C-alpha cells in the first residue's frame, strides 16, 4: 500500500495544536485590546459645529460647569445649554465672530445647534446625573479633565465594568459636595480619600445598586 500522507504529516497534530494555542492567544489579546470600550470609546473627539473650547471657558475663565449644564443637579439628564446661554456673554464678547455664526443662527431661529453627542448611554441603561452629582460624584469621575480639553474627547471607558467598579466601592470616588464641579480637586492622599469617602457613604446613606434592575430598568 502506498503512503497517502508524507512522513511529515506525523507532526501535523502537534503543529495544529500549537497553531490553535497561538491563534487563540492572539485572538484573545486582540479582542481584549481592540474590542473593549477602553479602545472603542476612549479618545472619541468628533468635530463639533462650533469650536467651543472647554479649556478656555471652564479652565481659564473658570465658568462653573453648572452655568451651562444648568439642570445637572435636579435632572436625570445633564442638559446642553441653549443658544440663549451662550448669547448671555456673546452678545457682548466676540459678537461678530464667524465661528459663532451657528450659535447666532440658533439664537435667531430657535433651531438647536447640531452638537455631536460624545458620551452615549445605551437605551437600555438608566443613568441619572442628579443623584450622582448630589452624592459627591464629581463630573471628573466620568468625563475626565474637561476643563483642560480644547476639544472634548471621550476620556473614560464608561463600560459596565467602569460603572460597577464605583458601585461596588463608591468611597474613594466621593468628594465634598462643594467640590463636585471643581475638576482640579484631589484628595490629599489615598488614606484620606478612604476615610473621608467612608464618612460620606455613611452620612449620605449611599447604597449604589448592583442588581441588574438598578440600571437596566
Amino acid at each position, binding site marked *: *500500500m*502506498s503512503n*497517502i*500522507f508524507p512522513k511529515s*504529516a*506525523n507532526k501535523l*497534530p502537534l503543529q495544529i495544536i500549537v497553531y490553535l494555542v497561538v491563534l487563540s492567544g492572539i485572538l484573545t489579546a486582540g479582542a481584549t485590546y481592540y474590542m*473593549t*470600550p*477602553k479602545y472603542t470609546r476612549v479618545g472619541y473627539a468628533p468635530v463639533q459645529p462650533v469650536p467651543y473650547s472647554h479649556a478656555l471657558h471652564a479652565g481659564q475663565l473658570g465658568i462653573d460647569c453648572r452655568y451651562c449644564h444648568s439642570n445637572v443637579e435636579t435632572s436625570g439628564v445633564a442638559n446642553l445649554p441653549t443658544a440663549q446661554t451662550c448669547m448671555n456673554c456673546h452678545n457682548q464678547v466676540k459678537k461678530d465672530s464667524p465661528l459663532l455664526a451657528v450659535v447666532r443662527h440658533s439664537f435667531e431661529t430657535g433651531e438647536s445647534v447640531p452638537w455631536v453627542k460624545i458620551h452615549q448611554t445605551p437605551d437600555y441603561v438608566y443613568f441619572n446625573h442628579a443623584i450622582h452629582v448630589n452624592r459627591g460624584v464629581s463630573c471628573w469621575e466620568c468625563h475626565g479633565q474637561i476643563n483642560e480639553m480644547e476639544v472634548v474627547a471621550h476620556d473614560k*471607558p464608561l*463600560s*459596565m*465594568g*467602569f460603572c*460597577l*467598579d464605583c458601585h461596588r466601592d463608591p468611597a474613594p470616588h466621593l468628594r465634598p459636595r462643594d467640590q463636585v464641579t471643581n475638576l482640579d480637586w484631589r484628595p490629599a492622599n489615598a488614606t484620606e480619600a478612604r476615610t473621608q469617602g467612608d464618612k460620606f457613604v455613611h452620612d449620605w446613606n449611599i447604597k449604589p445598586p448592583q442588581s441588574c434592575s438598578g440600571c437596566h430598568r
Partner: protein
Amino acid sequence: MAAHADTAGHPAILDEVKPAVLPRAILVANNRSFSWITEKICGIIEGKTPVWWWWCFAVACFVASFTVAGLTYLVATGVGVWGHANPVNWAWDIVNFVFWIGIGHAGTLISAILCLLRQKWRTSINRAAEAMTIFAVVCAAIFPVFHVGRIWYAWFLFPIPNSNYIWQNFRSPLEWDVFAVSTYGTVSVLFWYIGLIPDLAVLRDRFEAAGNKLRSFLYGLFAMGWRGSNRHWSNYEMAYLILAGISTPLVLSVHTIVSFDFAVSLLPGWHTTIFPPYFVAGAIFSGFGMVLTLMLPLRAVYHLEDLITQYHIDCMCKITLATGTIVGYAYAMEFFIAWYSANPYEGFTFINRAFGPYAWAYWIMISCNVITPQFFWFKKVRNCTWFVWVLSIFVNVGMWFERFVIIVTSLARDFLPSSWGYYSPSIVEIFTFFGTFGVFSVLFLLFIRFLPIMPMAELKAVTPQADVHGGHGDPASGQETH
C-alpha cells in the same frame, strides 16, 4: 473449597448441584465471517447512493429549512415571536431542549455503562446511538441559545472575563446546565470519534485500493495514521475504557442537572426531590425509544438482521420497559407525595395536571409513557418488528408530552390566580421545533451514508469465530456453559 476440588480442577460440589447450561446469546447470526462483516458495513458506504436516500435527504432538508426560517425570523424580529407570555415564560423552547437532550442519553448509556458492564450486544447499535446522541445535542442546543433572544450575546453563558463585569451566577442550575451539556457534547463527540478511528482506517485502505484518492485522503485524515498495530490497539482500548469511565457519571449527571432547572425552583410540580432519578430514567426511556425508531428501519433497509438480531431488539425493548415503568412509578409517586405532604398547592398542581386545562396533554403522556412500554412484556410483541417500531414512536411522543406537562402546567397555574394563563405555541415555535427533526435527519442521513454505522472491529470480536476458547460448548452455535 480446595479440599473438595477434584482432579479435574473444578469444585466437586458442581457435580451435585448440576448447574444449568445457560446458552449465551448469539450476537452475530448465521455464523457470519469477519470478511462478511467488513463487506456489509463498508458496502453501505462504498455502494451507489440509493434513490431512497436522496428522497429522504431532500425531505429532511426541506423540513430542516423550517428551523432555519423560524430562527431567522426570531433573530430578525425578537424573541417575542414565540408564544411565551406571563405566566408561561418557559414553554416549547425548554420542552424541546429537554426532549432532545433526553434522547441523547441512550447513546451515552450504551457507550459508557453498557461498555463497563460488558454488555456485548451494545456493539451492534452503539455507533449509531452515539451519532444520535451528538445530533440530538445539536438540536437541543438550538433552543436555549435562541431563547436568549439576542444570540450574539449567547457567550454571556460562559464565564469569560469582559468589560461589562458580567459574571455567571454559579448558584443557578441554569449555569450548571451550560457546563453539563457542553461537557456531555464534548465527551460524546470524543467517544464517538475514538471508536471510529479503526473503522475510518479500514475505509481509507479500501478506498485507496479502489483508487479513490479523495476519499482515501479524507478518511485517512481522520484515521490519524491508524495502522492497526498491537500498540495502537492497546492505546485504543485504554482510551476507550477511560472515556467510558468519564462518560458513565455523565449519563446520570446531565439529566440530573437538567432536572435541577426545575427541582431547585420553588414552583409546585417542579420542586420535587424525585426529579433527578425520574428525569434520568425518562431520558434513557426516550433515548431507547429513539434508538429503536432509527435502528429498526435501518436494519430493514440494509438487511442487517444478522447483526441486529432479535436478541438485540429484545434487550432494547426490555430497557425501554424497565425505564418506562420507573417513569410510571415516578408519576404515581408524585401524586402520592402531593397527597401525603398535605401541601394544598402541591395537591392542587397535580389535580390540575390530570383534570385541568392541560388534561389532554397529561393523558397523552400517561398513555404513551406508562401504557405503551407495558406491551414489551410480551415476547410476541417484541418479535413483531413493525409493532415495536410503532410503540417506539409512541414513546417519543409521550416523552415530549411529559416535558410539556411538567413545564407548562406548573407555570400556567402558579401561586397567584390573578396571573393564571393558558399557553399556546406560536406558528414560529411550531415551525422551529418541526424543523429540528429535519436537522436531525439530515445529520443522521449523512452519517449513514459516509460513516460506518457499526463498529466493525468490535462486532468481529463478538462473533462466534472470535471465541478462541471454542472448547467450551459448541463453537459453531456460540454457546458455552457457565
